[in-house]
């Protein structure tokens, strides 16, 4: 049978009975993004609690082994571990740094999005107290460029970012891939947003194309925010793109959703059975000045008459229900985009947390430094000063520049200490 020839999921050569078709939703559910990286809110929180807890334990264990180099006795060190909120703030801070760098390299939006996705996923598995996000962020960006077919050689990449070496970036690549459970495919809301942009013009032919275009550009901006939020773990790309667009232009998207998910049903609904008020209004066109004029749309009234037989009463209810559910999901997603988990910290906040992280990653080094400072009573610690050699065009990355090398030293030191 021809129908079974299409049905590739069934083993064999098409001599079997046909099964139900495979929908795009079915396909999405086979993706690693759905299988491994989609969560409920509670699951996501549980994962972060677990990772944070482990980060704290590791830090405390490290701190308990700090010895005074002179007396060779264990030192009691004040341990200040990070809260989940602090971890998130620092990740958000460096996610935005990644965006800055991606723009500097003129990378396409997928590379940027994939880098952020890698960074956020990495810290579901590892704690900020184990790996400093400024290092991980750079490697995520380099890896994302390769994954998205936008190859940049490590030398070019490293040269443009002060205080990095090819080695300092490459050394985390393997750990990141492993933390990602070897899943590298990321589906972003950019494509679906573009799809909605095309569909919107089709569904609402009377709305000025320029108006839709401007609205779409605004929506792209919100999508760029959305991919830094937890929405990527909680919603599908089309849900995120609709939510982002609705945040950018509620009026337009509400009309689109009604027309798309309620009115299109009319062709299947018995003549005269339903007349939903809002639907009559949705054929509005927006004039250049932005004011909305409502017009009647004749063609759709004809659609209503092309009714089909069947249990339309039930399906009408069902479509209402589905529409309500869709709205609910989109509203939830909108709230996620702006919730506290996606808050960007101030630079001072980030610096403060950053200092704590240095201590957590290497208590011995920090302790030693504190002692030395106390002993010498001089503030001269070069590695803490901001690298003045940072050129102007790279000033936006000044923070990674000044601190990246210091961290590498820290780790080398810690290795020596372990031995």
């Amino acid at each position, binding site marked *: 049978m021809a129908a079974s020839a299409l049905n590739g999921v069934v083993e064999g050569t*098409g001599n079997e009975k046909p099964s139900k078709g495979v929908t795009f939703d079915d396909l999405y559910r086979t993706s690693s993004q759905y299988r491994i990286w989609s969560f409920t809110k509670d699951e996501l929180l549980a994962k972060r609690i677990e990772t944070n807890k482990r980060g704290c334990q590791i830090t405390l264990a490290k701190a308990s082994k700090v010895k005074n180099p002179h007396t060779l006795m264990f030192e009691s060190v004040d341990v200040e571990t990070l809260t989940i909120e602090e971890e998130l703030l620092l990740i958000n801070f460096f996610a935005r740094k990644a965006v800055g760098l991606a723009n500097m390299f003129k990378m396409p939006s997928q590379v940027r999005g994939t880098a952020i996705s890698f960074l956020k996923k990495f810290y579901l598995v590892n704690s900020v107290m184990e790996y400093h996000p400024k290092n991980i962020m750079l490697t995520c960006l380099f890896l994302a460029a390769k994954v998205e077919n936008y190859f940049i050689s490590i030398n070019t990449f490293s040269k443009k970012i002060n205080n990095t070496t090819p080695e300092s970036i490459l050394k985390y690549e393997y750990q990141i891939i492993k933390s990602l459970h070897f899943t590298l495919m990321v589906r972003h809301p950019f494509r679906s947003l573009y799809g909605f942009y095309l569909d919107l013009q089709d569904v609402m032919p009377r709305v000025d194309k320029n108006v839709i275009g401007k609205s779409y550009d605004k929506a792209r901006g919100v999508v760029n925010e959305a991919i830094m939020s937890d929405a990527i773990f909680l919603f599908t790309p089309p849900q995120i793109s609709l939510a982002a667009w609705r945040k950018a232009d509620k009026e337009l998207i509400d009309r689109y959703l009604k027309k798309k998910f309620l009115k299109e049903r009319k062709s299947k609904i018995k003549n005269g059975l339903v007349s939903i008020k809002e639907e009559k209004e949705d054929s509005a066109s927006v004039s250049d000045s932005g004011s909305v004029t409502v017009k009647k749309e004749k063609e759709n009234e004809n659609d209503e008459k092309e009714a089909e037989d069947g249990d339309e009463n039930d399906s009408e209810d069902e479509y209402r229900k589905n529409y309500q559910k869709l709205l609910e999901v989109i509203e939830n997603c909108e709230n996620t985009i702006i919730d506290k988990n996606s808050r960007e910290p101030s630079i001072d906040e980030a610096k403060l947390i950053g200092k704590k992280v240095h201590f957590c990653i290497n208590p011995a080094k920090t302790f030693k430094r504190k002692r030395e400072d106390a002993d010498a009573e001089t503030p001269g610690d070069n590695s803490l000063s901001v690298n003045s050699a940072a050129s102007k065009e790279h000033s936006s990355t000044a923070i990674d520049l000044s601190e990246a090398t210091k961290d590498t030293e820290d780790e080398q030191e810690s290795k020596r200490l372990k031995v």
Partner: protein
Amino acid sequence: MTEVVSLSGPEQHDDESTLKVSSNYSKDTKVGEGTYAVVYVGVQKSSHRKIAIKEIKTGGFKDGLDMSAIREMKYLQELRHVNIIELIDIYSEHNGLNLILEYLPYDLEMLIKDKSIIFTPANIKSWMLMTLRGLHHCHRNFILHRDLKPNNLLLSPQGVLKIADFGLARSLGAPNEELTSNVVTRWYRAPELLFGSKHYTGAIDIWSVGVIFAELMLRTPYLPGANDMDQLIVTFRALGSPTEANWTNVSKLPGYNKINIYPPPTRQELRNRFSAATESTLDLICSMLMLDPLKRCTTTEALLSKYFVESPRATDPKSLPKIVPKNK
């Protein structure tokens, strides 16, 4: 559980052919070596299932993990289908990666070359069906394979064909994205690629399948160009030269040149070339080998074509001809 990542290079292996690598898999015999990987045959200890291990070389690549390895991992993780090679597991050792793949001892090229084996039309239909189903699954996931050839169509001991080697695969390009045209092994390269097109679709894979289809019937490569220039001549001599009349905007492609204008083959010429082919077989070949990628059929259209409905029925994979294992 945390693991301290070793920053030293891979530890030294024994020179013995049997290498102990992991508690779950044994790595037995080395069977092949590519630019970025070494392939071993081994056994999954828990199930005693025979497996192939693709050990990805990590040393010596100055830009970190090789792009082909990244692509292979990226796409095989997403594709689960009976006609696509199964990525069973990935494990790491010594800061290196091992892809555990299902064990597929033969490929279609070996069968084509083994002249002691006779292909019936039902056999060819079976291989085509399995190839197209696997490809359909790639395309409906918006993944282009970009290197289809008989050598990359592997066969399980049970005769099931599986598409392998995703080292050149990529996701379908965004509308304005530029793709490299330097893909696909030359003989299976679609005309838009020969002309250096930077925007292409799954139609390039369909072309490759069309050429493989022809090769299955001819038992010899259908369009064996000696070099890139010759490939154009060989292709157009067999299928006619593209013109603005049969392929709108072809002259705007970067590498387009009007070398020799060959007329398209007549139906009778095609019948003579593929003497065993039925009319619907020819129809399907022709629609896969349309010069204009927009006119080429999709996997869906190919699978729904008359060829797969008419008699004979595709051979059951179990009953397909196999390579007789050589004596050791």
